[in-house]
């Protein structure tokens, strides 16, 4: 079992998978990331990240039905698992905790 550490790009992909539910598959995730963050990523990088997340248990996947586009090939749809949701929650709360401890003074606003 691989470690459950969540990398920065992995977290981004994990968030996107959650946000796109139930339409999260390779190209859609890539497009979404591009749209939301402006980051240009290669499709192969998205695939690798999603496969890693799958191995770590953060997402689960299954093949969809036949399609009209892409030569009739099926898509692999990903969805967040409870464990994945928890990992996102943890990351979020950890971040918020630290964020809240930033003293107001440091912004120099008041």
């Amino acid at each position, binding site marked *: 079992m691989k470690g459950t550490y969540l990398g920065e790009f992995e977290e981004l992909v994990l968030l996107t998978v959650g946000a796109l539910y139930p339409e999260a598959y390779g*190209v859609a995730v890539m497009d979404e990331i591009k749209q939301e963050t402006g980051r240009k990523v290669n499709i*192969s990088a998205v695939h690798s990240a999603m496969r890693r997340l799958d191995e770590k248990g953060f997402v689960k996947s299954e093949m969809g039905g036949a399609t009209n*586009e892409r*030569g009739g090939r099926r898509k692999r749809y990903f969805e967040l698992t409870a464990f994945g949701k928890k990992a996102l929650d943890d990351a979020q709360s950890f971040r918020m905790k630290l964020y809240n401890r930033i003293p107001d003074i440091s912004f120099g606003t008041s």
Partner: protein
Amino acid sequence: MSNRRNISPPKWADRFLELYCKTEFLEEIQGDVHELFEARIAKQNRSMAKVKFVWDVLRFLKWSNIKKSKRLNSNVITMTRNNLKVAARVLWRQKANAALNISGIAVGLTCFILISLYVKQEVSYDGFHQKKDRIYRAWVKEVYDDGRVFFNTTTPLPLGYRLEENIPEVEEFILFDSRETLVGRGDNRVKDELNIVSANFFKVFDFEVLKGNRANPLDELSSVVLSDTYSQKYFGDANPIGEMLSLQVGGAIHDFIVTAVVEDPPLNSGFSYTMLVSLENRPLFYSDGMMKGWFNIGPETYVLLKEGTNADGLKPKTEAMVKSLIDGSGVFGDVPVEEHYLIGFQPLTDIHLNADVPGGRYPVGNPQYVYILGAISLLILVIACMNYATLSIGQSLKRAKEVGVRKVAGAHPINLVSQYLTESMLIAFLATILGVLLTIVALPVFNELAQVNLAFELSADNVIYIILVTSFIGFLSGIYPALILSRFNVSSILRGGIVQSGGRWVRKAAITFQLLLTVFLISSTLIMRKQLNYLQSSDLGYSYDAMISVPLYADSHRGKVSEEIGTAFKNADMLKNELSKNTAFSDFGSGSHVFGSEGWVRLGFDANTGNYLQFRFLIVDPYYLDAFDIDLVEGEKFDPALDIHKSQGVILNETAVAYFGLENPIGKKLPSDKFGEHQIIGVVKDFNFESLREEISPLVIVQNVLPIFQGISDFNSGDSFIPKLVFRYQGSNLSEVSDLIDKSWSGLFPNEKLNFYFVEQSLQNQYEDEARVNQIVSIATLLSIVIASFGLLGLTILMVNSKIKEIGVRKVLGASSRSILQILLGQFSIQLIIAICLSIPITWYLMSSWLDDFAFRTDIGVDPFIFSAVITLSIVLTVIGFHAFKAARSNPIRALRIE
């Protein structure tokens, strides 16, 4: 938009994706890249989309996506990995054994590689020319009714030209000739070899042109091409192209322009050249008679045949050509010339090792030596492998339990065999690395000892050969132990019973064979040494110690032979007068040939009886025979004071007297009326003027050549017959000799280069080939002794270990160290005795056939066999003795304490 569906991504990229991608990922990945492609087609231009598609496909080429072959992923790869791991552990556990095995095979392999390099060089002569399969050397054979046969590979000059004109299959021809020439103008002229070759020489043969005119270096009459070494010699590091080089041809000096520098001929080429000029200059080098005559010999003639020509099939065409071109009536009489004047072709790559065709300029090696050495190197490799096999079988008892457990766990015999083969392969592999390193280290030493010039490089070819040999060694040495081990009976092993190690008999035979080969090699080396010593120390019938010979120059190269010889004799006298002022020099004499050179002039004549007789011919001054202390049997030697001796005197050797059928020869004549006025004045004892390989030939010695030349019908010479001055040097300082001779020489002949030779050295050089082979065999013998010792040492360790309890019990019961030592040594004594006994007839037979090549040979005798037996015995004792002694002396408590 409308035709969007018709545009598809690059097919090859799609197929490539399908090829490498794991099937479980293929659909999603292919789907995604296709979807992206379709989206891009809509937005961007097509070619951009295609490029990006390819890029995506390439980006997916990751380890995790790549299909793992079902075959590779199977049990085999896992088991191989496991086998390797087990093998490495076994080697590590038995360090001493592994070290002995690896070094044994490494030494064997080193020997094999070294000798193979030599053999490869010998068999690959001129194999590097692209057109080698179509290049042939022509030979000419004149067959006379009285039994005379003149078989030559140096051919008449017109042959090449006529072959090209008359035989359509001959695409091109190349003549190759060489000649000594003086290089330079004025002082310090140097005598060097000049090659006269057809202008197309560099088109047909693949010698690389390094500088200058690559396309056609010998295009002009004035072109001269230099080898790399000679470019350095005459022009140093400067660019020689376009520089002038003066060569003396005939009486005149001609200027040539350097047009190209070519690589030095490779070591495995039979062509030796240093300076080459075009054959179009032939009027300078050859007389009219030479250029037209069909019964002279000159250059070697090579032909390039058209693709698909069978050289043997050209016979009718050469016969027709001979019939139409050559008038044989004056030579052969009234018989069809094409049956007596034969022309044939010999493949280029066949020349070096074919001793049946006479040599021309191209060196011919002894094929026998190549086979012998090849066989020896293979045998040594085999005994190295046997070492491993015998040791592993010996070890098999220790591993019986392992085999049993594996079998119980379900191992098939095949699995066991492959496991043990992996082990031997690993050993072979490690040994190869060590062996190659050893070879690289040992090569300069080998070159030095064997007087060869071999190079070893890790080229692709060599690496492939070595890998093949390694696998062969691994397989050969591992297969037998592997089969033995895998056949063990499970139940008997695990019940704790005795394992039937079926290898005992084979093991004993293997040791015997090893010892046999060692004894054979040692005695053969000794016999070869003995013969070489005999050759070099036997009484040749003259005294040559401290004799120096200085070749002289004749004043004109184009005069009559007799005049040419006369001028050289005059020069000899001048040099003699100069040198004799120094008391260190004595015993002066001069003659047309000196001992230690092959190819003394051979003359033939038709005797009064109608027989055709041949004899060797020596032209001397009156002092030559005394200078060499040649004994007289009857009559007298040349008397310097008698003019009649000078003009008419003839001295024969004993063989000549018998050959000519003369009785009481003094005062008589040679058996033909055609000879001029002459008289036999003396007979000398036979002496070995040729190498001891040959029987002594009839020899005629004269001062004046003219009476003899009048009566001869043919003339043949392999050595220059221009006289040499010989004298004895009484001193020990060799550099002083050189200075003294040089001083006198440069005063007299400032324009000529001085050469001088020690006769003793030249005599030894005659047996260079034999000496070299002897050196190589000695090295092989030494290495085989080392390998055999490794094997014996391993077996002794094994034996002592397995008998440790027995020794302990014996000692407790009162056995002395000595009796135990006897038991241990006794193990090998029978094998050793059998090996020695068997080796004697084999060695005797093989060495006798080698000795048959020599007309003068030593007796094999018993001493080589006694020596080799003693040597082998002492080696065996030393190797075994130390360990056995230790075991015999050990405290029995240690052996018996643990149960």
